[in-house]
């Protein structure tokens, strides 16, 4: 099987997995879900690392550097802000326990 065909297979299967697991998320968690998913899209950081780390020409290094910066903002910022939000989501029981 060609590399492209393998890639398409992986893509289609992953998209189906995504549809399956996301479609049941309750509306109350939509914002953290979106920002968490957004952080996962920062996986492009591994491409950025290779680009910045291997780039031979100055232009490639500059673009690679920018790719690493923006991807890292996306990854670090995305996961941190999601954690900050989720820390606030409390059930009635948690809330009553905290206030005691």
């Amino acid at each position, binding site marked *: 099987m060609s590399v492209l065909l393998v890639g398409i297979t992986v893509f289609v299967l992953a998209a189906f997995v995504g549809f399956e697991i996301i479609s049941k998320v309750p509306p109350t968690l939509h914002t953290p879900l979106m920002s968490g998913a957004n952080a996962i899209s920062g996986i*492009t950081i591994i491409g950025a690392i290779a680009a910045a780390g291997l780039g031979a020409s100055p232009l490639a290094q500059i673009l690679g*550097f920018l790719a690493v910066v923006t991807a890292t*903002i996306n990854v670090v910022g*995305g996961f941190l802000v999601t954690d900050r939000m989720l820390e606030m989501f409390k059930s009635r029981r948690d809330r009553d326990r905290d206030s005691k």
Partner: protein
Amino acid sequence: MTEVLYLGAAVAFIVGLKQLGGPRTARNGNRIAALGMLVAIAVTLVAEDIINWGTLAAGLAVGAGLGAWFALRVQMTSMPQMVAAFNGFGGIASALVAAVAVVEVGLADQAPETVVTLLISTVIGALTFTGSFVAFGKLQGILPGRPLVFPGQKIVNSALAVGLVGVAIWAAISGDTAGYWAVGAIALVIGVMAVIPIGGADMPVVISLLNSFSGLAAAAAGFAIESNALIIGGALVGAAGLILTIQMTAAMNRSLANVLFAGFGSDGSTVAGTMSDKPVTRATPDDVAIALAYAESVMIVPGYGLAVAQAQHAVRELADSLEEMEIDVHYAIHPVAGRMPGHMNVLLAEADVAYEQLLDLEQADPQFANTDVVLILGANDVVNPSARDDPDSPIYGMPILNVDRAAKVIVLKRSLSPGFAGIDNPLFYDQKTLMFFTDAKAGLEETQSALKHL
């Protein structure tokens, strides 16, 4: 071994996303996904024969510092623009990954399918970048939130789209990198042009769609550099964003095409001047406090006005006082209340409202008939009965919270001015409705003190 670890990271993303779906497991899920990312980064650093350690370390440090700084100081009310900005950064990162491949290898020496995926990654990434930052500007108030439309806009946009495809085909066939850069530049312009005609109230759809695009850009970059981790991560996010996009458009009873291309709310003539001279029943804080105090059940309907006024803590305090009086309090949250999916839920969670009290449209709607008082805080179109009753209304058919089925409705609102959609709301003139013209936060605090003095 490298591939196995990348697969482990992909599994962590899937498990993490799955756990993000439940309130009890969500925080853990986010951490699992973050751990997967850490593994992927570490593997890449070890497996690639990196030469430019200095550049790389500087990039990682700057990015991590900025990302952490943004994430830790952003206010919950500003979460929609924060997510928009992060989508934009993710998009441009994918486009830049493709750009580096083009700079290093050129287009002529790449396999045809690689050229295509490089172009796709660049186009989606670049338009996600500018589109996201236009959305950011609108949400942050730097750009006007209303749709920006001009004569000939559709012709210009069509020309850009045709031009993009034409130049991309030429670049792919000729292998000329100048064509590649032109494609990137056109995509940047398209991102701007696509989002400026979209009104602030439609931002939940736009952000969801850009979220999906940031994933697709990563997946396309994954095809170009032959990385399954990128393809899987990107496909997951693409699917997640698409689901939310579909849910948001369904909640507005509009097609995606209508949201993107209609310039909704731009037509000032639809503002119904016919009803605006009708009398409304004005209420004082005392009136509101009395109505609430004698209720057995109260349903609070928050909207974007709550976020603007930063009134989430004030509403929680009022709700606490009502609960001490043994009044049953719940919150009814429309899917498109606020500026991104789940925006209101995050705000109320910040104010320590337990998530069991937050009802979605399906849960809340049947309860209005048995509710004594509905308290509307800065929401408008999502409670507009003309979406149900008036076939001529631009929002006709949109699922609404049928608050007018409750015994009494209290609306806290700055003025009678219509919402973003520019549509008058017959609810405000209903005999059972009390209008309390005020800033949501100030009004809630006045009501709270009136309640104490009853």
